[in-house]
């Protein structure tokens, strides 16, 4: 097992946030009643013809620019032919051997290609099974049919489930920064298939791969890939062979089941879509795409490191989650006095604050205003409050919002700045804990606990822990 290396490539489908569908004028659907966002084109009525959505091409080019792809001056649409009730024309209009974008890289993963296509409609199976086999009837809702998709295919550069999940988060934040998609896995605007194979570590050849279909959350993707790696490793170690097939991972049971084998694979009979003309990219389209490019997460992380001196981990965490980065930058720009040091602020955003947000993804949607957090961290840095008191203030901010300085004053949480007052409280604490004082004096630094506890009780937690330790040592003559 230890001498087998997983090789993973991903195929990601992203629903593009255009106003209209890929090949017709219907608006995209957001939960409208079934079959109300349809027209002759997206219903595949006889005689109807597709017309490519210029906005989708624009978004495709932005994705290509973000991934450093080669943008094809001329790309064409193909028909991918197969029968299924969610495919009204009997073919999906997609791109095949001349896609919009070729190559590229995101983070440490190479991109194979990016192409545009249309989404299928939605099937609802009536009856007990919930799947088409064994259902009493199936109903087709064509609202989703024809929604523009960008399919991003990576090279097989990933080596673990965790790395795949991490990379997918980077991809999602990049797409979100571009504004080309909602990239929401639960709502299906980001969908992921994984190609997985194992090979002896150090080998350059690829093993037989399986394709794990349509996993719809980051957790399921990591679990699914882990389960498939384990399944393949078990097969190989028991002398069996991995068979090329398409698999389904059931997140409820953790079971992996076969959807179809290589022999059952469709022959899609791809051929150039004769109803569309080639997509010819001109200078104007490229300029327009370039003009719409925002700062991308990887560049933002680099800027956080270079200009703010953040540690690489903090910089990436903030940059790869766009909403965290935005909140962090809003806090920095709030003009708090004293100003919080960037790294301390970053730690509070990604640690204390995020840990208190539960299911909320975006701190800006919480009660804690970015300026309030900046003020709190600034006060902490200036030792106007100690860390424990700052956490209490943050709890209050989470619950009710407000101004941290007012909370500190109202609750009497400010640090004791009068050194003489603190010195006398320390002296009283030493007198009240003679055993502990002796142990500390004898070199047992950990024995200081009850003494500090005493001081904190007396000061209601307002004393600075470091200052208390210093005074204890001083008074004990250490």
């Amino acid at each position, binding site marked *: 097992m230890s001498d087998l290396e997983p090789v993973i490539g991903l195929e990601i489908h992203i629903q593009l946030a255009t106003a209209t569908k890929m090949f017709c004028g219907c608006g995209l659907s957001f939960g409208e009643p079934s079959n109300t966002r349809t027209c002759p084109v997206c*219903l595949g009525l006889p005689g109807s013809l597709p017309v490519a959505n210029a906005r989708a091409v624009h978004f495709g080019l932005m994705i290509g620019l973000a991934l450093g792809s080669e943008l094809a001056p001329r790309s064409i649409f193909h028909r991918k032919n197969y029968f299924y009730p969610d495919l009204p024309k009997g073919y999906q209009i997609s791109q095949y051997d001349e896609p919009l974008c070729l190559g590229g890289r995101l983070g440490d993963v190479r991109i194979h290609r990016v192409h545009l296509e249309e989404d299928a409609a939605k099937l609802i199976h009536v009856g007990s099974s919930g799947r088409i086999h064994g259902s009493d009837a199936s109903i087709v809702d064509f609202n989703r049919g024809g929604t523009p998709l960008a399919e991003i295919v990576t090279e097989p550069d990933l080596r673990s489930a965790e790395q795949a999940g991490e990379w997918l988060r980077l991809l999602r934040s990049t797409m979100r920064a571009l504004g080309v998609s909602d990239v929401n896995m639960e709502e299906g605007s980001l969908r992921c298939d994984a190609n997985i194979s194992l090979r002896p570590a150090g080998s350059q050849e690829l093993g037989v791969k399986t394709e794990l279909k349509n996993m719809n959350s980051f957790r399921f993707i990591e679990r699914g890939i882990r389960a498939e790696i384990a399944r393949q490793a078990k097969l190989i170690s028991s002398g069996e062979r991995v068979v090329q097939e398409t698999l389904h991972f059931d997140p409820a049971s953790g079971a992996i089941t076969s959807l179809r084998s290589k022999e059952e694979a469709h022959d899609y009979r791809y051929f150039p879509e004769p109803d569309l003309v080639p997509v010819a990219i001109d200078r104007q389209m490229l300029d327009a795409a370039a003009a719409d490019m925002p700062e991308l997460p990887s560049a933002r992380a680099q800027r956080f490191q270079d200009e703010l001196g953040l540690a690489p981990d903090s910089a990436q965490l903030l940059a790869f989650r766009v909403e965290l980065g935005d909140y962090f930058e809003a806090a920095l720009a709030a003009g708090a006095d004293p100003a919080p040091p960037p790294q301390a602020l970053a730690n509070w955003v990604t640690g204390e604050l995020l840990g208190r947000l539960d299911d909320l993804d975006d701190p800006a949607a919480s009660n804690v205003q970015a300026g309030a957090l900046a003020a709190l961290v600034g006060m902490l840095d200036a030792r106007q409050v100690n860390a424990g008191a700052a956490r209490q203030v943050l709890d209050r901010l989470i619950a009710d919002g407000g101004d941290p300085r007012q909370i500190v004053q109202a609750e009497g949480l400010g640090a004791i700045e009068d050194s003489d007052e603190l010195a006398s409280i320390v002296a009283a604490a030493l007198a009240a804990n003679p055993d502990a004082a002796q142990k500390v004096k004898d070199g047992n630094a950990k024995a200081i606990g009850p003494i500090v506890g005493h001081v904190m009780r007396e000061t209601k937690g307002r004393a600075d822990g470091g200052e208390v330790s210093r005074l204890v040592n001083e008074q004990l003559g250490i």
Partner: protein
Amino acid sequence: MSSPDLLALTAAQAAEAIVAGSLDAAELVESYRSRAQADRAAREEGLNCFTWVAEESEIGTAQPLAGVPVAVKDLFCTAGAPSQSGSRILEGYIPPYTATAVQRLTEAGASMIAKTNQDEFAMGSSNENSAYGPVRNPWDRTRVPGGSSGGSAAAVAAGLAPWALGTDTGGSIRQPAALCGIVGLKPTYGAVSRYGMIAFASSLDQAGPLTRDVRDAALMLSLMVGQDPADATSLQFPEQIGVPCAERLDGLRLGVPGELTGEGIEAGVLEAFRAALKTAEGLGAEIVEVQLPHAPHALAAYYVLAPAEASSNLARFDGVRYGLRAENPTDLLDMYTRTRHDGFGAEVKRRIMLGTYALSSGYYDAYYGRAQRVRTMIARDFATAFGEVDFILTPTAPTVAFELGEKTGDPLSMYLNDFCTVPMSLAGIPAISIPCGLSGGLPVGLQLAGPAFSENRLLDAAYAMESVLAFDGSPARV
């Protein structure tokens, strides 16, 4: 105006008379509509030109047509009227929208009185492949009218409509026009929108007029051309289509390709063709030989490309959303197979199988890829030839109208009907068929083909020829 006089008018003449106030549009429409109705009511005793006749026609008022009636090939989608493309699978199907070409004609004041019979999905050269029975040739009721626009051609020749709209994929306007002794024009690919035409082979299908004379062909074309936002392959016609008025052919070089004017052409047809060449010389044209070296391979390429596209275009007829659906299917596959088994005729099934095979993985390059290369070479042949000559002349069809049932058992001999017309379709260039004489009492068609968008010059030349040839189509008028 008495009924025979009224029926003797061309569409352009009728429109002028209505605008001038000497003809009542309603009377004209009713006169044709009732004749069409009578043919439909006569069933096998009539010509069977129509699949639907209006109970009551809406009389157009807009100029220039001012109500002139028109018959429309069944495969055009017409809101409120059955559009079945000659197929059982679309029996009774009434689309919710109207094809652009029909829309433009009605907006110009045309009154649609009927839908015309055709070979199923435009696949055929005799109109014997219609699910609604064969059409008879008005010159000899034991003979075919040609196809696939057989109903349109026979209706115009028999005076059941002043003119008709048809479509041409490999000769489906020109060949029936030739066999019925009328004018048929296949425009440059992209000149007329395909939106709303139930597709046979998308890269070849083109709408065009079937008329009594060249001026009517020019008039109908002038009202239909132009880019359509709903058809990505449609093009802006570079100039207005004018009224043809040339009297001479002085200075024109007319090319006669040996490849299409020798072997396989019936003697009587060749005789009429050669006489037409003499007529052209008499009008001042110079007749020269040209080479189209790859033209003999056109039919083979066509019968790969057209079925390939058809196999995909016809996938949407699956019983899910419209048209025929097999009753009480046991499962999805059963519904698909029985619906398509019952709904498609033998020729359609043959071409779906041919096309599916040609696109199959492992055969694509040998068939579809190779046929595309032949297509490119044929287009180059024409480009080279048009460097030397203004137009290319051939017989339209290798034979005159043949007996009903004569070729139904032999698809290959049926396919040979398109021998002279398919090369122009593959090259996407305009071509017109005008009647140039009789052979054994049956009409012979002369085909003139020109470079893309040369319609004005082509119509002018055809008009000059028509005036001198003075073909009398009246024997066919019932």
